[in-house]
């Protein structure tokens, strides 16, 4: 038995998948306009998800008559912690991804429930192929994260698992919370022996642990290899500045810095953004737009910087909080409001690039009342 939302959800997934397949080839030649599809998603979501409907009412937005994706009320990421943001009932969940833990425990984590992973997987595959492996259909995948079986509720774990399967299989080197540095060295040696380029997929804190533990281990990878790193530290390792970590990773794996690229994603989204230095080095992306710290969104994601205090849209080039319209978020919220500071850069038509600037710098804390940062870190 399926719910009343199943048929419209299926139809929207089909439309979104058609959009993705076309947009990856030519963002200017999609089967329908971005705004029209985004608004249809928002109308469906407002009809099925009380939180989206309440937000629209609070903003005084009539989605029925809206014409621009910018009119869609963006759901703050925190809402995924406070209530269920899903157009379908829980018994139709095929995957529920949770945000990473804090010392508040499991109950306080945000959750993103998916009725199907097909659209998520399509988007991840298409954009990964564009910016992570534009030159190869198969790569040895070395994953510095736990296998999906150990973290079935992690959207990152799900993506890494799918990438590994897609590219011919991979080895996972974080088990029961412990990094297997020797196993990474063995996988690197195997890649060197076979002269087969590798793709390292890693969280930033796992890379720090690897670098701290490598002591004499030979991690060099053969030419053509690359490293994707993602995420922050949240108390799971010492903090390392991005430039410093990238240089150390480049040195350890013998991979040019241009081929060490960052990923920007979050549980509440279904799409990812990447640095484009690898694709640019391979001649697959405009070199002028490629530098570390700048992340390209796929053509099915639109990023707007909004004023941090009014949440009103800002002009491209201004620094504000990232508001993302992600067409792949079919059954949750197509527009997401983050707390991350970005500058949206003018780029190729249909492609948004953002400069990621981290969280807003606050004044140093006053007083002894607890702050959110005090709550970060593993449970």
């Amino acid at each position, binding site marked *: 038995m399926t719910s009343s939302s199943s048929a419209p959800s299926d139809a929207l997934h089909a439309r979104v998948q058609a959009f993705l397949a076309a947009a990856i080839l030519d963002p200017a030649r999609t089967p329908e306009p971005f705004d029209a599809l985004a608004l249809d998603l928002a109308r469906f979501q407002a009809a099925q998800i009380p939180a989206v409907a309440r937000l629209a009412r609070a903003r005084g937005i009539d989605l029925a008559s809206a014409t621009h994706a910018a009119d869609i009320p963006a759901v703050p990421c*925190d809402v995924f912690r406070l209530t269920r943001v899903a157009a379908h009932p829980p018994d139709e969940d095929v995957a529920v991804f949770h945000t990473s833990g804090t010392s*508040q425990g499991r109950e306080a984590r945000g959750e993103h429930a998916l009725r199907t992973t097909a659209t998520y997987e399509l988007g991840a595959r298409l954009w990964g192929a564009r910016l992570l492996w534009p030159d190869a259909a198969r790569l040895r995948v070395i994953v510095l994260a736990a296998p999906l079986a150990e973290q079935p509720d992690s959207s990152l774990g799900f993506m890494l698992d799918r990438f590994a399967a897609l590219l011919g299989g991979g080895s996972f080197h974080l088990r029961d919370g412990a990094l297997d540095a020797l196993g990474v060295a063995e996988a690197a040696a195997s890649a060197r022996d076979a002269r087969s380029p590798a793709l390292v997929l890693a969280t930033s804190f796992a890379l720090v642990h690897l670098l701290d533990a490598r002591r004499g281990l030979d991690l060099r990878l053969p030419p053509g290899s690359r490293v994707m790193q993602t995420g922050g530290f949240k108390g799971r390792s010492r903090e390392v500045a991005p430039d410093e970590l990238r240089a150390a990773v480049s040195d350890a794996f013998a991979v040019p810095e241009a081929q060490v690229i960052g990923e920007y994603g979050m549980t509440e989204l279904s799409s990812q953004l990447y640095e484009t230095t690898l694709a640019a080095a391979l001649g697959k992306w405009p070199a002028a737009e490629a530098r570390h710290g700048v992340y390209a969104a796929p053509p099915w994601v639109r990023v707007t910087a909004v004023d941090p205090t009014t949440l009103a849209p800002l002009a491209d080039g201004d620094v504000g909080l990232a508001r993302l319209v992600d067409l792949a978020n079919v059954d949750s919220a197509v527009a997401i409001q983050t707390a991350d500071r970005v500058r949206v850069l003018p780029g190729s038509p249909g492609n948004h690039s953002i400069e990621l600037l981290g969280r*807003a710098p606050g004044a140093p804390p006053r007083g002894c009342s607890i702050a959110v940062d005090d709550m970060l870190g593993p449970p």
Partner: protein
Amino acid sequence: MRATEARALRVRRAVALGRRIADSADPLGIEARRDLGITSGLSSEGVELALTEHLEVAITDADLEALLAAVEVAPRCHVILAANVCTAALRAIALGLAASSSVTIRHSRRDPGLAPILARELGLTLTDVLAAAPGDALHVYGSDATIAAVRGAAAPGVIVHGHGTGLGIAIISDDADLDAAAQALAADVSPFDQRGCLSPRFALVEGHEDRAAAFAAALDAALRDLGDRVPRGPLDDATRSAIALYGAALDAVGERFAGPQHLVGLDPAPRTLPLPPAARVVHVVPASAASGATLLAPWARFLTTVGGAGRGALLDAINALAPAARRAPLGRMQRPPLDGPVDRRVLERPRC
């Protein structure tokens, strides 16, 4: 003079200074108001409220006895003060004086609060570099990360007492008058613009959604009225942004009641408790004894005080959840007796 009498005398001298500072006509009171107006981040009315209503200006014999019992005697006592609430230095120094006649203080340069005045008048040493020796007591106020760093750097044998961050919670029992409780809670939220470790950030209203909604509306009115008389200090950009995002989230899950100096968020069907910004922002939810205990369980170790209006099963459940927390009637959460550390969790923590 017996040692205990000497310790008591030193504490009483600090309290006597508090009385002078609270007095707006006293030269020390004038100096404090001038200094805190520059450094505290509070409005001038907020400084006045802090000094006249929330500074320790008296101590009963029983409280003094309790304070002396709570503090271990040491040959020397060192006090590290973070950018704490502006009146906090008085209690911190009183605790130091209860420990030793030799007290050395390192305060925040950015926000020294009352420390310079108290140190000068009491003849204590202000320093940038503390040199604690084995056997000395070292009281450090600040974030848990700061306390951990100080512990790690302290010489062997130094007895470190960490006074970390925390928060208060308000419980409105099912027999409480909502308007009176709202007035009282507003009086607990506004001091120090909610930046104290006793400041209530959550309000759990026993009963159903409608009762919580009525309380949120009453609290909105009370905070509006109080804000007219005691405006909030200026907000930095990060705090204003955090308030905007919190408000937007509440638009999605419930309701927000926003005033020029405050925000009340109502979540009628809470799944978890998000930490609202510490800037006169209160998160209100309905709760039963069972649901309240579940919601608060992740926060229990941070609770410094439980403020209650009325009596009921919810209040009993929360009190059981946080045995070290102070208990106070609403309206008195920010006026703990001078009977030891303001945060009594410190008394239960292991010392090294």
